[in-house]
């Protein structure tokens, strides 16, 4: 299970996350972002791509399983 939070003060709606992990991040209108704060482990690689691609580095992800291991 992945926990995530986006610092929406930093977010400027570049939508990279919504392109790369569309099951977790979704644009709401042209600029607003909605996301699932708890994503399935199956989304791990896509969420990693989304977080890395964020131009304002606003996405914090905690991989609950990885940290338990």
């Amino acid at each position, binding site marked *: 299970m992945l926990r995530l939070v986006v610092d929406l003060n930093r977010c400027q709606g570049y939508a990279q996350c919504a392109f790369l992990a569309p099951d977790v991040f979704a644009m709401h209108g*042209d600029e607003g972002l909605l996301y699932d704060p708890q994503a399935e482990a199956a989304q791990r690689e896509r969420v990693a791509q989304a977080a890395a691609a964020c131009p*304002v*580095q606003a996405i914090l992800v905690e991989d609950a399983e990885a940290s338990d291991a």
Partner: protein
Amino acid sequence: MKQGILSQILDYANRANPYPLYEELRRTPVFHDGEGPYVVSTYHEIHGLLHDPRLSSDTRNRGAAAGDPLAGQEEGEGQLPPSFLKLDPPEHDRLRRMTNRPFGPPHSPRRIDGMREELRSIVKGLIDGLADGRGGSVGGDGIDLVEQFSYPFPVTMICRLLGVPREDEARFHVWADTLAASLDPDPDADAEQREKVTSSARMELGMYLAGLIEERRKNPGDDMLSQLAAGHGQGETMSTMELLSTAALLLIAGHETTVNLITNGMLTLLRHPDVLERLRREPRLAVPLVEELLRYEPPVQLLPQRTPLSDIEVCGVTIPKGAPMWLVLAAGNRDPQRFENPDRFDPDRKDVQHLGLGSGIHSCFGAPLARLEAQLALSELARRLHNPRLLDDPPPYRQNAVLRGPRHLMIACDDVRP
């Protein structure tokens, strides 16, 4: 400041490594030598200006006596209206929003994600081709990675994205190559002849696209061009001219930059064999690696077309209204005020908020596609090429100082793994 640093940056002799020149440039964050452009090279100043509404991207706002050596060197768009790259809001926003509608979220959130398998299969085919020895054998004279991989990959992707029929892809490649060459003029070649070839290619491509748009209006598919052509009513429909201009932008901007990103990436990896070996073992490293690559060797080195709409002050220098400006992204990306050890290529870098894809409203439209293409290309090349080596370092570069990258990248390897 030494005289003529801008000429040195433009000088082909310095193409392989402009970074020492950028370092010199950064000592004067806003450089201006009495004529020519105001050149901004430090990270925070560039970042600020990319979010500064006093700057226009519309070159029609430039003063007459601009004196910019890069003026008029950008892609020739012929008789087409300016693309959104060269427009300000609200026209920019309107066109970009319409272009985005069939491309990405909120309306088409799965277009790019849905191309992952296609990307994979194109990459696989191209790397298989390297093994077949098509146009250069593995053990023979080496492989030109540009010709055989970096070039065909993004063009094929753009064809698929736009919805160019498979049987026309080969023609499309020829036009794309010709237009790309026009961005990169060989100073020794016959300029008149070149211009003739270019404008004929531009014309043929334009006619082809216009025909395709016409066809898609009648028989729409779920491709991007069909949806762009269909429009969305209420002032949210592009004219045919706007559509042609946008398609040309997607083709040129989406193509040239990705070629350079992939080629620069492989060159950088071959110069850092430890990282290449890590990538071979951990393909996931490609994700942060591509971000670091966008910082370390950005495919667009500088943005040459901004101009202030009123006098603005940057670092104590007044840049007058209408003056040409260059924002040297590649210099900002190596600014030690922003990045620790900026000249070190470090895919584990935690703080990598680079300028490689720009920032603000004009930030790279195709960024998510470019990222996926580069991540996949580099991880697959690393995985499949056995013992790859650089045959020519530095490789021969293209003329273009803005869209900077190797013209050829000759490599050899022992084998191509399945």
